């Protein structure tokens, strides 16, 4: 798994050392404690006879029950239902009201004169979504890998205020997609900051989000901006786990900094790089919210990706084609499955490395 290959859990302790973070909890404590205590005692009374009857080990079933219930109802059941939806038509939500049409939805999706030109397809938006997604994924993932690697290398050097700079690059990761999109929508608008800067340097102001090619560029740029800090952090952890003796050895061998990078850093960082690559791929394929708020998929359908097609077809169009939406989401699901399997294989390799 990708997580086991990363780092040992070296959790900082909430209790030891600086306890200021807990101050709010301490204030709330007298209020919440009696209520909690009552609840806990009630559960205990309820459980004690059960435990006496079933024994200690079977209590595991009780502890896992709430989670399993929610998981079953909201994840497992829907996964199975999704297959059924994909094979039914009509606009009704309840499965009993929906006519079974077999592979009809898939036939609709794949009804194309020429698979390379979306215009020849019955569901041209689906194919446009796929092509846009492929384009987006290629540029976004390479952007993320390139810039997070550069940033991690820079942050790993002996610099002043490393903590500050690390925070600077990481901060946008925490912002909500809606907020990120609005920040950039404001910068990119016609009378916005970017055009003002461009004009200072003698350029011409542009309607960035209304020009088809620029719109795609900015959609990619903004998502790299928002996400690269996350991958930088993972790569930084990878860099810091490279044993320093290796650099000492290579410097005894007379290696320069480029050779250090080429023959020590890069090979040892490769497993982490693969993790980053696949995680970024998985995220990029699912991209929706940021773009939805930034361009709404426009201009035209230039930045409409696959997930937006799933959302509009099933939920925001006047006619809600749940079957088609479910069928399209299965295409997404299969892509994710392939990527996850790829990640598992690479993850296993990297934990051997």
């Amino acid at each position: 798994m990708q997580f086991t290959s990363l780092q040992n859990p070296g959790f900082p302790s909430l209790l030891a050392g600086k306890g200021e973070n807990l101050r709010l909890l301490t204030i709330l404590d007298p209020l919440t404690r009696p209520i909690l205590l009552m609840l806990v005692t009630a559960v205990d009374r309820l459980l004690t006879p059960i435990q006496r009857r079933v024994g200690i080990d079977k209590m595991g079933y009780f502890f896992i029950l709430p989670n399993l219930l929610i998981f079953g109802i909201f994840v497992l059941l829907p996964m199975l239902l999704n297959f059924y939806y994909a094979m039914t038509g009509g606009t009704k939500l309840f499965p009993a009201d929906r006519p079974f049409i077999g592979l009809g939805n898939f036939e609709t999706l794949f009804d194309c004169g020429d698979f390379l030109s979306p215009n020849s397809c019955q569901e041209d938006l689906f194919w446009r979504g796929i092509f846009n997604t492929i384009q987006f994924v290629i540029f976004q993932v390479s952007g993320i890998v390139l810039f997070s690697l550069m940033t991690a290398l820079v942050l790993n050097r002996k610099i002043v205020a490393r903590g500050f700079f690390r925070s600077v690059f990481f901060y946008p990761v925490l912002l909500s997609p809606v907020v990120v999109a609005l920040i950039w929508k404001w910068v990119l608008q016609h009378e916005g900051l970017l055009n003002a800067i461009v004009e200072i340097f003698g350029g011409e102001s542009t309607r960035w989000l209304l020009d088809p090619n620029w719109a795609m560029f900015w959609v990619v740029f903004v998502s790299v901006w928002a996400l690269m800090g996350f991958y930088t952090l993972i790569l930084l952890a990878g860099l810091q786990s490279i044993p320093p003796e290796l650099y000492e050895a290579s410097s005894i061998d007379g290696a320069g900094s480029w050779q250090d990078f080429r023959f020590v850093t890069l090979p040892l960082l490769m497993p982490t790089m693969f993790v980053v690559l696949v995680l970024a791929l998985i995220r990029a394929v699912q991209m929706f919210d940021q773009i939805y708020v930034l361009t709404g998929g426009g201009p035209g359908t230039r930045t409409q990706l696959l997930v937006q097609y799933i959302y509009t077809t099933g939920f925001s169009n006047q006619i809600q084609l749940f079957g088609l939406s479910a069928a399209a989401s299965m295409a997404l699901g299969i892509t994710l499955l392939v990527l996850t399997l790829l990640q598992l294989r690479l993850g296993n390799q990297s934990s051997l490395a």
Partner: protein
Amino acid sequence: MAAERMTVSQFLSNRRGHRRLDISDMLTYLYLTIGTILMFGPVLWLVASSFKTQAGLVKYPPPLLPYQQVQVEVAGFDEALPLFEVTMEDGSTQEMAQIRRVGIEARMIDPADPEAGEIKVNIRQREPVEEVKLAWENYLDPLIELDNFDFFTYLKNSVIVTSVATAITLVINSMAAFALSKYRFKGRDAIFVLFISTLMIPITVILVPVFLVITSIGWKNNLWGVIIPGAATPTGIFLLRQYMLTIPDELLDAARIDGASEWHIYWRVILPLARPALAVLAIFSVMWRWNDFLWPLIVLSQNDYFTLQVGLNAFQGELQIQWHYVLAMTVVTLLPITLVFAFLQRFITTGIATTGMK
């Protein structure tokens, strides 16, 4: 730690014992400077812009700071008058307040000497006098009088969703992790594999059927419909289970000998010991829930139930975007996360380095 960093960072730099800045150091700081401007600049620009008035926002090229025209009280007038710098016929300039503008002529008065009477000035001969002033009304108006943006309701919904969902997530996932790490029962490993294998199945893939389940339960336009589906998170189980595995079984046995029930052990022994991992999951959960967008967008279609993210999106999507309010409310929306980040950064970075998840 510092020593280790030094040796690692010998890569590319300082490795030959140079003390002064060489070219690679300069490139490093150049990269960091440009990076800082690119990463922080847009956020600062948002904050600065959010304090501009509606009139200030349409100015182009946009000034860096929020300027507003100076208003002066003049004896004999009920309302404050806008102040201008007027170029007189003899070429001198004088600050004067404008009483009224008719066509291309403005009637001005000298605020220092209202007795001198009004003069008429061509509007081309006057420039507004401005000062840096924060337009707090961008923040205050939406709290009271915007009928299409009910800020308090959205905030309340977001707070409820975030806090209730985080509480539930912590309780049920820690219970499950406890079961998976400390008990031997039939099917345990199968259940664990099942959880973990759905780690990469986002709700995006099963939108339609989850929506059906929510509708059947009657949770459409209900905050429970947003809270519950994501509560059983495989990430949380994994994180907590890995941590609980490090808690020695002897502790549990000792408690059992003392007559503690299993529930008592969970509550009194496991939970306190798992606090660091719980803290990481809590922070993650707050981030997930506060920023969540697609699922609330589908479940909540009535204004009264919108969370901040959904409300903000609807508000900015209107035909006439009221940017002065949108910007201010965006700042309010990013504030809690920024505070969490400022105080709990350590936990977030550890959590990510541990799980590889956000």
